[in-house]
């Protein structure tokens, strides 16, 4: 027996990157814009999808992939709007990855815009490219106004940052401007939207962005 040393240079993340590329090719082939919606648990990701489909469902063909830990609670909410939708039960997975998403894509060939609602988590999803066109990160004032500062990486890599539930800011003592400034400081290129899905603040700005994405 003797010892050998092998130079390997194996990229551990290469398989996810490869499948993400394949997903991206699929979206390009079928002219689908894919939005990876990441964000904190309970920040309003599913409601954002619902409100968008309600408002623009007549002009844009939507689809949705929902990450649900178990069951299909989010899927049922979205399916009420008669769009093709699929659940990915993530179980103990703390993020979606390209592989999980790749299994669902066939049924969305005819959609213009595919929402991919990621697991509620501000840490893990950031490192896993799904093949998306746009990354949205959503938080709400109820997570505390230091939530952006405490999770820099996911905000640094976002295309759109939504600060939701701003109507509750006074009630929870959250400084919305601090959250916006923290976001802009980390990511000067991202579009930052102050929103409240219940009162409608910021929704028009978001819908305009969605329309521009598919135009």
């Amino acid at each position, binding site marked *: 027996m003797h010892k050998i040393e092998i130079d390997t*240079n194996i990229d551990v993340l290469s398989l996810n990157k490869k499948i993400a590329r394949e997903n991206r090719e699929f979206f390009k082939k079928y002219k689908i814009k894919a939005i990876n919606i990441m964000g904190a648990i309970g920040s309003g990701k599913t409601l954002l999808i619902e409100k968008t489909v309600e408002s623009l469902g007549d002009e844009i063909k939507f689809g949705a992939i929902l990450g649900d830990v178990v069951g299909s609670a989010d899927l049922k909410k979205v399916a009420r709007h008669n769009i093709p939708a699929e659940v990915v039960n993530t179980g103990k997975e703390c993020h979606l990855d390209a592989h999980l998403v790749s299994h669902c894509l066939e049924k969305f060939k005819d959609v213009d815009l595919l929402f991919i609602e990621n697991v509620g988590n501000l840490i*893990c999803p950031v490192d896993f490219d799904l093949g998306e066109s746009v990354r949205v990160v959503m938080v709400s004032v109820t997570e505390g106004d230091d939530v952006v500062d405490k999770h820099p*990486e996911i905000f640094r890599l976002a295309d759109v940052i939504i600060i939701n539930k701003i109507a509750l800011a006074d009630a929870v003592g959250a400084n919305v401007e601090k959250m916006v400034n923290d976001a802009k400081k980390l990511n000067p290129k991202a579009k930052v939207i102050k929103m409240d899905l219940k009162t409608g603040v910021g929704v028009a700005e978001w819908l305009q962005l969605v329309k521009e994405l598919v135009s």
Partner: protein
Amino acid sequence: MHEMGFAKIIIDEVNKLAKEKDAKKVTAVKIIMGELLLINPEQLNFWFKALTQGTIIEGAKLDISFVKPKIICTICGKNYNQPVGLCEKCGGFVKVEGGKEIVIEKVEMEV
């Protein structure tokens, strides 16, 4: 947070290689990791040891080197140690490159 997951992928790749070379034992694995992945090396080592028990990789030394991202102002060239959005010196956009890789660089084994 993904230390166990990454340990598993590293072990799978090393096992594939060991099988190819018909190795009797793996004695060392050298990896490089980007700092921005925020992987805790002690935790990675822990899971590496835990998941290789009873295998030919048991006892192998896991050598972890970190790679810093390149964080540089696109206007004035000022370097930073941590990601920032805008340059404090000139207000320019600061670019972040790398710092997110995990690469198995070398594997040492007995054949």
